[in-house]
């Protein structure tokens, strides 16, 4: 079949014309009979959905949105965020080849949980540019079957609210932190990425947090864009709880 190839390409020739409407959307009529095109352009018969032309209102919406973007958001080279993803007062960012490890701490677990929220969100935008709009304050509950899954669900909830409702939480105020049947062993506890290592007390119920989240809606005109967080991971997740200090380590996928 080698001889089928000719050095002259059938494509890429300048200003090759084929009938297609202005917006480039509609299926082309079957007039280009060069091989490969026949099958592609004769739709409708092959069971593929018939194409509908892009109507003008659709086009107008897109054009308007593009114009809006162009007007609102034209950093020459990207404006400097001012924050370099460096440590806040109660959190820092640690090294990892492809991802980033969050480390937050506080005088107890409740405070550590509160601090890891700005730790994550500050990576996505500059929290110093975020204000608290009291009308947007949200109250919700998060639950898990052990501490690791609670921490996972906790961060996942804030990520979800950011990417679905564009809600940036500046401050998370924990109203209630419920741990079922506290075990006597309150010394250091590391779960080392394991979700399954449950002790007796934990097995009996759910961990829940009720939180009041304060912040505002993310807008490109006001808030600088940081790095996108794809997901929270259990990878090397650590929860250390000691007398007077609690530490959390979470790797986020970015």
């Amino acid at each position, binding site marked *: 079949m080698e001889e*089928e*190839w000719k050095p002259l*390409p059938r*494509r*890429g020739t300048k200003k*090759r014309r*084929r009938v297609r409407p202005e917006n*480039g*959307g*509609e299926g*082309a009529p079957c007039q280009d009979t060069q091989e*490969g*095109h026949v*099958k592609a*352009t004769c*739709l409708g018969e092959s069971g*593929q*959905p018939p*194409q*509908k032309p*892009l*109507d003008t209102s*659709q086009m107008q*919406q*897109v054009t308007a949105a*593009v114009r809006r*973007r162009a007007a609102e958001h*034209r950093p020459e*080279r*990207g*404006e400097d*965020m001012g924050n*370099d*993803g460096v440590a806040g007062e109660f959190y820092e960012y640690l*090294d*990892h*080849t*492809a991802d980033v*490890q969050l480390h937050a701490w506080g005088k107890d677990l409740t405070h550590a949980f509160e601090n890891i929220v700005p730790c994550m969100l500050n990576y*996505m*935008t500059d929290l110093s540019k975020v204000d608290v709009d009291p009308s947007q304050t949200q109250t919700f509950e998060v639950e898990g079957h052990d501490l690791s899954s609670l921490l996972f669900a906790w961060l*996942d909830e804030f990520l*979800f609210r950011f*990417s*679905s409702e564009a809600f940036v939480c500046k401050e998370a105020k924990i109203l209630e932190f419920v741990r079922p049947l506290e075990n006597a062993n309150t010394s250091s506890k590391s779960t080392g990425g394991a979700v*399954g290592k449950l002790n007796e007390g934990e097995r009996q119920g759910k961990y829940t947090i009720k939180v009041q989240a304060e912040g505002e809606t*993310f807008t*490109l005109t006001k*808030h600088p*864009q*940081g*790095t*996108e967080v*794809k*997901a929270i*991971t259990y*990878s*090397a997740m650590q929860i250390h709880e000691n007398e007077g200090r609690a530490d959390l380590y979470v790797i986020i*996928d*970015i």
Partner: protein
Amino acid sequence: MANGSVVRTFEEEMGFLHRETPTRFRIDKGCVPNMKVEGAFYVNTKLEELMFAELKQHTTAGGVGGFLPAVKQIANVAALPGIVGRSIGLPDVHSGYGFAIGNVAAFAVADTEAIVSPGGVGFDINCGVRLIRTNLTEEDVRGKREKLTQSLFDHIPVGVGSKGVIPTSAADLEAALEMGMDWSLREGYAWAEDNEHCEENGRMRQADPTKVGMRAKKRGLPQLGTLGAGNHYAEIQVVEEIHDPRAAARMGIDQIGQVCVMIHSGSRGLGHQVATDALVEMERAMARDGILTNDRQLACARIQSPEGQNYLAAMAAAANFAWVNRSSMTFLTRQAFAKMFEATPDDLDMHVIYDVSHNIAKVEEHMYQGRPKTLLVHRKGSTRAFPPNHPLIPVDYQFTGQPVLIGGTMGTCSYVLTGTDKGLEETFGSTCHGAGRAQSRNKSRKTLEYTEVLAALEEKGISIRVASPKLVMEEAPESYKDVTQVVDTCHEAGISRKAIKLRPIAVVKG
């Protein structure tokens, strides 16, 4: 099953690695417990240094510490139930979540023990690369480069928190999840030829939108038609070298300096959430079915279990979302070019050359031990590379083999390769996907200067628009493995062939 790591010295670890060919190493059984098959990885002399440095760091840390080296991760995958052939690491392999990034593993669908793992697909389901050609040359773009880059940046929503510009309702999203690029075609955002030049024709038919959770859909809706951040980009590139004129001609590339557009993006928040939800669900399935893995991150479920089937249906829907996403951005790119050059996208010959996915699991027929066998092939950070005459590649590429698009990093070259028969035999028809990270993001930020990176790009004649400047450092070429080394290794190993080399002239990033 504790992490699978007995503490060994570096020399002891090296005892499990054997050079098979100049570009391939074998990982013997015993490297980690319960290995069902051997592992293998492809490297050349430059890249093997990085691999071994990572392993050495792990052994000196005494088995404790942040993450497992890629070698160990490949071996842990080889210990999963139902794996066939080998667990394969490609030249751009580096440590990832559960599976290494650049890891290929196939599981026999008929085997009731065989598993599917979201970690083998990655969080960004159907993250992939699309290449669009034009009939413009570098000469035509000269003088308009900055304006064109700005226009592309204005058209394509990039970065954290940006919203899609294409009007989409919740009902549209459902349809898009089910129909993939057929939806884009129906709505007028894609050309019929686009679907032809796309893996699976831009639509995975096993997709079931009802298996995609509400949270995933809510995350996905505002993000349809957005590029995202991180390593995702849209680049205007020019053809620098044509290695295989015959294959290039089939792709419509016929001259040095021809302008192309490369789009690298994925399924956005929707895919991330599908993966997250599945991992949580599979934790439960593993306990129920008594599935043992060496690493907790390798959460998985039997292919034939409800969890496995649910994941595959949801993953397919997320894959469809990614194709619609790339199609929407293709549409916007065509608009940007059409306005700039005052010609229709059709007159500019802006056809999709091909669209590959490099984070996906697919059911495929492969020859295994001399017989055809239905396998579920996980490709994480790996691109499908089918040879000439394979039934699953488009008519246009039947004689050349499937085009494989390898995106470089900001400011470095990209490549188009083609699939080979040897690749089909050795790696289940898979090859590398890009450069692969070599340096952590934090380290890049600390060691590199924002202005230096920009000056270096300027010097190379590359325009850049980026939403977040710290990304400039994180994504600087210095943070990645050399893509040319990676591609050359694939070429040398014969698992794919070089066809075209592309050089960026403009980068748009989150």
